[in-house]
């Protein structure tokens, strides 16, 4: 039997991903100021942000294709 489509997970991850991108849009100026500082631990910020966005948005895009019915054909 086919697995049920993860619609709820798609909505949840989509909300988190959307919220993160909304924050980026709303606080663009502050984020750019902090993320381009070269003192202290500030250079870690772009790496951290990339990880956080990849987890949230990566989950969303994964569920997106799954809900659309595009899943891997397991040949083995």
């Amino acid at each position: 039997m086919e697995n049920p489509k993860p619609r709820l997970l798609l909505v949840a991850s989509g909300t988190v991903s959307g919220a993160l991108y909304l924050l980026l849009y709303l606080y663009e100026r502050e984020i750019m100021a902090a993320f381009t500082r070269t003192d202290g631990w500030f250079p870690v910020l772009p790496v951290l942000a990339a990880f956080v966005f990849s987890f949230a948005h990566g989950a969303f895009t994964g569920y997106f294709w799954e809900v659309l019915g595009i899943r891997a054909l397991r040949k083995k």
Partner: protein
Amino acid sequence: MEHVAAQFIDLQYGNVLALLAIGFVGGLVSGFIGSGGAFVLTPAMMSMGVPGVVAVASNLCHKFPKALVGAYQRNKFGQVDVKLGLVMAASATAGVWVGADFQNRIKLDFGEAGSNLYVSLAFVAVLTIVGAFVLRDAVRVYRSGEADAQEKASRLALWVQSVEIPGTMMHFKTANIRVSALFTLPLGFATGVLASTIAVGGFIGVPGMMYVLGAPGLVASATELVIAFVMGFGGTIKYSLHGLVDIRLALILLAGSLFGIQLGAIGTTFVKPFMIKVVMAAIMLIVAVSRGLVVPVYLTELGRLDLAPSTMAWLQMASFAFLVLALCTGSIIIIASMLRGHRSGAITLREPAPD
């Protein structure tokens, strides 16, 4: 250290949409062949007014999380050899240092145009030779009627696997190969040198893992994502320490490319293995044409040729058009072969199992 906030552009809606679209197509190609995209993303950002160094830094910052998601996805399909990826990445990192140092020296000795000429000639030479070889192999597999069969290791790979050097032998389980580290080291190193020169190390890394080490195309292209993650991560830290990453560009690219990379990764389970080689060869050969077109421009800048400014502008535009064409051709082949694979897969699934 210098604060370079003045170099960051104001983002327009048109730019954002373009970044999303290029990100998606670049991600699709990366998910399928393990690399690609950077050769279009960086010049595309520069054409929006982003300084070259910020474009490179932002591309790297989007590359490592993209590669992470792609590697995670393809690992679920059993295609990633993490150990091979990490071993290759270790020597690739050394290659990046040496390659960057060499490039700096060329820039000092021959100026910006000399450095551009070197990069373009490296592109044309490597991509034409390796691309033609990969294409020839793909055509051979197709003609032999064994497109569905497991890939056979090349003669070179069989020899490499037969060489026993005590104390250096490593077994790579997923790639199902046992080779001496003395072969993986120069290969990873060359991948790093190429990555620092033309930004796409995978054009050496993937064919190298296939034809020199004997890894299957699917495993080689998936393992390249591990190398891309390590190199992108290291590169991001390096540029971030100088405040050069435009996080907005990186995250907007990521928004599109994560859709693409997941689709490309899923696509590898739909198609016959030799299609990886077809896509790779097509992209490499078209990119070679693109870089070949700008060689006369740099020769003119160096005073070796005498081209009219309008001709130079036309050649540069044509060169960029060929880069976009390379990415689009790759994507169209991927999507078309996925659709074909999906249809035949669906038919196979409907067929009753033999008694």
